[in-house]
């Protein structure tokens, strides 16, 4: 509606650290993946593992944060951001189009995975679910995700976070260079 241009990295990056700083000053902590554990606990996962036996109410503020992020996504997409493609490197567009992602130069997200047609494509459903499983399993194993390790942890110069971020890239590069070229054309 307001047709705003996307924000460059030098606006986006600093605002993310403002969010992290503000949470710390409020006595909270910036970390998104722990919400997945909280949600499992609320759903009764403590019956299956003691890992989920903790005082989830002390973490409920973080669910409020998540609720805010959902609202923020809606406000940005439907009110602020001009509709249109992402301004990708043409090399990326070429690589993705060679893997049958034809809308890499015309969409914000690939329709084959995020459009309505994804629901009726069994392989797309499987890819999204399994991708999600890896995200949930991996972030709990590593005890953090991009917000906890890459941003909060590296900001505090913590070695474990550097190791985790190296892991993020080992896994991401392996999939992007060796798995997606096989997987995406099959969608």
């Amino acid at each position: 509606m307001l047709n705003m241009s996307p924000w460059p990295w030098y606006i986006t990056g600093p605002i993310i650290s403002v969010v992290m700083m503000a949470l710390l000053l409020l006595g909270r902590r910036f970390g998104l993946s722990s919400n997945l554990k909280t949600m499992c606990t609320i759903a009764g996962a403590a019956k299956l593992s003691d890992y989920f036996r903790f005082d989830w109410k002390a973490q409920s503020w973080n669910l409020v944060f998540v609720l805010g992020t959902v609202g923020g996504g809606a406000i940005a997409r439907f009110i602020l951001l001009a509709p249109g493609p992402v301004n990708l490197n043409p090399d990326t567009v070429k690589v993705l189009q060679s893997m049958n992602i034809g809308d890499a130069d015309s969409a914000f997200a690939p329709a084959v995975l995020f459009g309505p047609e994804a629901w009726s494509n069994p392989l797309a459903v499987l890819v999204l679910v399994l991708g999600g499983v890896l995200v949930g399993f991996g972030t709990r194993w590593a005890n953090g995700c991009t917000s906890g390790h890459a941003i909060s942890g590296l900001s505090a110069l913590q070695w474990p976070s550097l190791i985790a971020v190296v892991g993020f890239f080992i896994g991401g590069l392996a999939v992007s260079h060796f798995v997606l070229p096989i997987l995406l054309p099959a969608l």
Partner: protein
Amino acid sequence: MFRVLLLGLLFGITLTMGEVISWFRIQEMFLFDSFHMYGVIGGAIAFGVLFNLAARRFGWHAETGKPLDIHQYEIGWKRYLFGGTVFGMGWAITGACPGPLFITLGAGYWPIALAILGALGGTLLYGILQKHLPH
């Protein structure tokens, strides 16, 4: 709590306006084709480092009077390297880390709900298998 909600709102708006929730931007990042995502993450870390140094130097506290809740990760490497690698695989497939998982839902790309369900399942699976994994 209202301020936490507003910060969530700001975070969701920022990651959408910065195109961080776009699956395409994550592919571009892993193909090393653009500085954008490295600038976003690196910029956030750079300001974060300054904040942490200043907080230590000037003894900043949370408004509750307690020290800032900066998580001290246990020393080790296995869980970080192995867990991080598994997460990185999921990040490249779904184009979403746990923040964008939910922001993408708000932005109306409903099939991401499948990845959220998967992530909850993966979290459950970790909780069950935790004792058998190297940490």
